[in-house]
């Protein structure tokens, strides 16, 4: 699904990301953990062609992400609040994205019904602009917007941040369902080690831009991660 070759990214002569090779297979759920400044967001931004690498390239479904826009049609992403159009109401934003992704009115209604529990009555029909929502609710809008068009590839940067406990649990359920039932490829970064082990079957630890550990999740993974970061 995603293949990175010889990727380096340098800011002000400091290498923030240096990945010789990494492959993420179809339907893999890939968790990225690391302390602040490890390069998690930078890696995601490179996959989304938001920044240019200093060397190397990233392919999505074997096509260089920089060469075409095709990946946009099957990639749902939410990295931060820059991904929200905050002067719209949540409904207006979803309608807009529905148009962008070519969803019908029926698809949209179905989406609202499906995410009703996730929104917990805080998002829709509130008659508020996104900019006036709390951070947690903005996060919900952003995550839902990434998932609404049933993408093949989902990229979420610290999706659990700012969510209340109930919503965190619901999100884990949603992500697991996407993985098992819809065959979605999942790329998630998180500071929360237990959440990421619950969602991902492969976990990569980044440190100062380099991959230091790459492991398949099993019952000991959480312990291993905790001992690594302790």
């Amino acid at each position, binding site marked *: 699904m995603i293949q990175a070759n010889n990727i380096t990214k340098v800011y002000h002569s400091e290498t923030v990301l240096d990945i010789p090779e990494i492959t993420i297979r179809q339907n893999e759920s890939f968790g990225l953990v690391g302390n602040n400044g490890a390069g998690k967001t930078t890696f995601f931004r490179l996959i*989304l*062609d*938001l*920044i*240019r690498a200093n060397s190397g390239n990233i392919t999505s479904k074997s096509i260089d992400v920089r060469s075409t*826009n*095709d990946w*946009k*049609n099957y*990639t749902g*992403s939410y*990295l*931060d609040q*820059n*991904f*929200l*159009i*905050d*002067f*719209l*109401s949540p409904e*207006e934003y979803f*309608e*807009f*994205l529905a*148009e*962008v*992704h070519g969803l019908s009115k029926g698809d949209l209604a179905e989406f609202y019904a499906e995410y009703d529990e996730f929104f917990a009555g805080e998002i829709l029909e509130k*008659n*508020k*602009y996104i900019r*006036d929502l709390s951070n947690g609710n903005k996060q919900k809008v952003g995550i839902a917007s990434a998932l609404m068009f049933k993408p093949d590839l989902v990229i979420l940067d610290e999706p659990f941040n700012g969510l209340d406990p109930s919503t965190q649990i619901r999100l884990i359920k949603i992500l697991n369902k996407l993985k098992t039932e819809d065959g979605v490829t999942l790329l998630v970064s998180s500071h929360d080690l237990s959440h990421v082990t619950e969602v991902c079957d492969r976990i990569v630890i980044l440190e100062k831009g380099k991959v230091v550990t790459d492991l398949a999740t099993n019952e000991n993974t959480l312990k291993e991660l905790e001992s690594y970061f302790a």
Partner: protein
Amino acid sequence: MVIKWFIQHQIKQSMRASIWQKTLVINIILGLVLLLMLAYLLFLGIFIDVILNEMFPDNDPIILFNSMLLYYFGLEFFIRFFMQSLPTLNLETYLHVPIKRSSIVHFVASKSIVVIGNYLSWLILIPFAVKVIVPNYSVGVALIWLLGIILLIFTNNFLATYVKRHLVGNPAIVGVFGMTSIVLVFLEQFNILSASQLSANFFGHLLEDPIFLLIPCLALLGSYSLNYFYIKSRLYPEEITHKKTQKVDRLANVRYFSRLGMTGQLLSLEMRLLWRHKRTRSMLVLAPLFWGYGLVFYPDAVEGFSLSVIMIFVGIFMTGGMMISYLSYCFSYDSNFFDVILTKYSDIRQYIRAKYILALTVSTISFLVTIPYVFISTQILFINSMIFLYNIGLLSFVLLYVSTYSRKKMDLSKGSAFNYQGFGASHWLTGLPAFFLPIVTFLPFRWAGQPETGIIVIGCLGLIGLLFHKLLLGVVIRQFKKSQYAMAEGFRQSE
């Protein structure tokens, strides 16, 4: 002393504000403009007695100057009301630390003292005092006179900030002030109460007897207390910030756009963006002023309207002003959600085309609105329609191209007056040729005695642009794709 920290923090805040992080060129230009203004004021101050003597040779310059002071304060009040921003302190960062509330309030209340507007008039007052009052009276009298006026300047400052504070919570107070000033103007008109007489009397007395200095002192104390107690009673952040959560307006329900598919969606998005932010909204509201340019320039030209360079400029601004102010920032407007554009729009052409269509719409509206100027001269319609073609056929593409050089995040929730955020030297340097191209085209024809042909050629340039609009749009898109990373990176950086 706590105040010391406040002042230190404020200085750091303003030194580290993004306004200084502009390119050197812009800072130098702004600095020169400021210096020039100061020099003008000083010049005016030094020669004001000569000027007054020339204009009103029969009047005593001191009485004359005194009689104008009250008008000056009135004018200053309005300028302050509209231009001066409210002094605020990020209260939440200080309220929870053990600092006495009264010192916080004093600091916020007195912060407006540093506004440059309080000191500009000194450049006129001091030379006048030295040159005219000292020889007629004495150094002491001049100092008292000066002190009285300066105290009133600060009174004015506090009064204006007080009224402005009420603008958020209690607009009625603003109305009362507005009505009072209208009444005063009427009284003056019908010679019931003459502000000039009052002014001359008061400042005349001040020259005779220092006891009158008490009045400005009390006024200053009073106006300061107004601010002090106002802030003190509203110290809780939630009461002072008035952060209203707005209700969603009905703009999204405009049916027309939904029929246009994706382009319609993008247009509708753009309209909502423009309408729902303070900065763009005030731009929209003020834009019709461009249409009034003709009222200023054309009447002089009624007799023997000539096809001149000035008229071309007037034409560009009238039919294109709105378009220019929209397009020169059109990508910075989206700086808050630029990542959405890069990750979700699979067709950038559509996105840029929507911007072009909106620009086309506003310039068409501007053109239609300015048609009635034809009653002044048919030549006006001729010039404006040719320039309209030039605007939509060529200038628009140039501006789109130039705005891909935007690198600064723009906070649209701030007002637009004197807001240079998102403004770069590159905007102007690259935009200038687009403005001078019509002039450069026109001048040779004019020298050759064929001004009409020159105007027609300008229109033809636009027509050619329209014919090749696909090609030009392609150039813009290529440029956009080249600079999208740099734009996205600049937009991502917060203040």
